[in-house]
């Protein structure tokens, strides 16, 4: 097959490219230029494009860079900023996958005559019951099925995850064995357009006005302190909420934008029996019933029961779980916790 290999400059996509080549595919390496500003997180900076290009040279495949900065701003950065303004906790990497990697890029791949698009995600695409599904990667500590949960059949049919069957250790060993310059490169941990130096505060601070907020106790409403930026506070947060040290552990259990109030309380106040999920997409068909549900990139899936509620899905937990910050992705796996059936955004 003629495969478009998305090269980020990291070790996973480097080895994925090598796997495709040894499987006999015709591979072209593409790096997407997404963020036009400063970057120091190990993804998308000029140094990362250099790494991608040098790996392509080492593997003797062509390498090109596509400029998708406009789409990135429209579909990832601007919504990220807006979400914070509206008190949501977005996941920009998921929106990037949704709109850039598996939409814009795959559309370009079609145009240029490619048979498939490949990325270095730790995930798998499998056939099950006559349809395609994302399945968890072989390395449970590195599984990224959560961030690629949104792929519909059309995409799944021509998406390859060449390292999904490998553990991270095996990936690095393979990279070392091939002498790839990215073999020991650290994984990029954070959002590519937020610098380690400035953080979210610097990025958002220059784009939206921050409102200060009162921090009050959940039980008796007493004033406990203040935060400089209501927009930076997330449900479930423990640190950085202006509380004096010592005393019992307190978590953000409520955020009210109208009154600019952050309510903090005991962890037990974070628990809930069910959550509502909007903008749900399905890999194949809508499903209801017993499911494993994952609410964060590295969190464990918990058992619950899905039911339709208008155009939303309600997940009723088997045992009480922490509430999910609005804006975060909620991903539904089959009851055996193997296949991604669909997912959406926590209300």
């Amino acid at each position, binding site marked *: 097959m003629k495969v478009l290999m998305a090269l980020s400059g990291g070790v996973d996509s480097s080895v994925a490219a090598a796997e495709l080549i040894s499987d006999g595919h015709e591979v072209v390496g593409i790096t997407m230029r997404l963020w036009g500003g400063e970057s120091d997180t190990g993804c998308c900076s000029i140094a990362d494009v*250099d790494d991608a290009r040098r790996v392509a*040279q080492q593997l003797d495949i062509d390498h090109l860079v596509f400029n998708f900065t406009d789409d990135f701003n429209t579909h990832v950065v601007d919504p990220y900023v807006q979400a914070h303004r509206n008190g949501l906790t977005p996941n920009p990497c998921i929106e990037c996958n949704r709109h850039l990697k598996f939409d814009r890029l795959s559309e370009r791949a079609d145009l240029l005559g490619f048979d498939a698009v490949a990325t270095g995600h730790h995930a798998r695409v499998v056939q099950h019951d006559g349809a395609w599904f994302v399945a968890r990667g072989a390395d449970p500590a590195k599984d990224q099925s959560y961030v690629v949960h949104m792929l519909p059949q059309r995409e799944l049919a021509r998406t390859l995850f060449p390292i999904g069957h490998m553990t991270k250790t095996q990936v690095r060993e393979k990279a070392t064995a091939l002498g790839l310059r990215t073999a020991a490169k650290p994984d990029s941990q954070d959002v590519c357009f937020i610098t380690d130096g400035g953080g979210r505060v610097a990025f958002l601070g220059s784009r939206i006005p921050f409102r200060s907020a009162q921090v009050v106790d959940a039980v008796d409403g007493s004033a406990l302190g203040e935060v400089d930026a209501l927009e930076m506070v997330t449900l479930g947060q423990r640190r950085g909420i202006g509380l004096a040290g010592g005393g019992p552990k307190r978590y953000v259990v409520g955020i009210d934008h109208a009154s600019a109030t952050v309510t903090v309380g005991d962890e037990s106040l974070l628990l809930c029996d069910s959550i509502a999920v909007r903008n749900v997409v399905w890999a194949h068909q809508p499903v209801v019933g017993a499911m494993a549900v994952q609410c964060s990139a590295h969190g464990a899936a918990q058992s619950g029961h899905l039911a339709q509620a208008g155009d939303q899905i309600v997940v009723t937990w088997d045992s009480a779980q922490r509430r999910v910050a609005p804006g975060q992705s909620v991903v539904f796996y089959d009851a055996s916790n193997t296949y991604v059936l669909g997912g959406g955004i926590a209300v």
Partner: protein
Amino acid sequence: MAAYTYLDHAATTPMRPQAVAAMLPFLSERFANPSGSHRFAREARRAIDEARDVVAGVIGCRPGEVVFTGSGTEADNTAVLGSVARRGGTSLCSATEHHAVLECVHSLGGHVVGVDATGAVDLGALAVALDATVDVTVVSVMAVNNEVGTINDLAAVRKVVRRHAPRALLHTDAVQAASWLDLRAITPHVDFLSLSAHKFGGPKGVGLLVAREGASFAPTLIGGGQEAERRSGTHNVGGIVAMAEALRLTDATRTADIERIAVLRDRLVDGLVARVPGVHETVARDRKVAGSAHLCIEGIENEALLFMLDEASVCASAAAACAAGAMEPSHVLAAMGVSRDLALGAVRFSLGVTTTEADAERGIDVVAEAVQRLRRVRVTS
């Protein structure tokens, strides 16, 4: 070159034949612009990438820390002017720096630190100057002096800078160092390092600046954003490839070269000292590089001597090659405290990889005769 007795390697060196060979394809069929997106361009890009890896290996830095420039002067300007442009603050350099550094410091209103009698930076004076100066952004001390060959102890300089101006960046003009010192021993002590290809068997018109991580600077050239936005302008692909090959070879043969050249240098200087009274070797051999044979000759004017050497096709120079031809003594010798009289008789002979015994012998003969003739004329006039 067979027609000349070339004793001016500090001015420029002949290209290594392998460097010429490496360069030629890029002047002919492999002419693509490496910034392009087609595969023809990517081949040229790859050549630059590989050259970058090679030079980084010899220098002991990361490939991403290498910025290809059009000359050593450009690299010096970028480090000094660029770091101050980025951060504000002041600049300092030693009194014997090349003009490519000195002019920058003067233009910024920076400070010049004295040197000892050998031309090495005076560490005590440096400490005092750093203490007395607010907000030092960059200190520039050359690795090897281009006129008299003196080697600076950059590890010691770094210690002083770290102690007296911990936030300052340290730049070294290593343009004269590549043939004589292991750059890997220098790089750990500095933030910026300049090199010039034509000083180590590469072509003219290409150099590089090492900018170590954390050493930020405003670029000298802005435009297309080449070199990761640090130095715009279409890459001199052939020059870069040739520079890398020349540096690789220089590094590979350096130890053997130095041994051989030192013997020739010693013969040249000892031969002249033995035959002609009043010839002074400006810097002691244990303080300078192996190819340096800078002399101060009593009772002659260097311009006159050079004229006579030229008639005999012997190539040497007085003061730095790019100093204006006036009768002013060199700023290097003045900073070293060499008397004006003696400085007027200063001549720089510099040996290199291609220097032969015949060059040394002929040098002795021609210089001795020329000096004797000039002194005879002077006495009788």
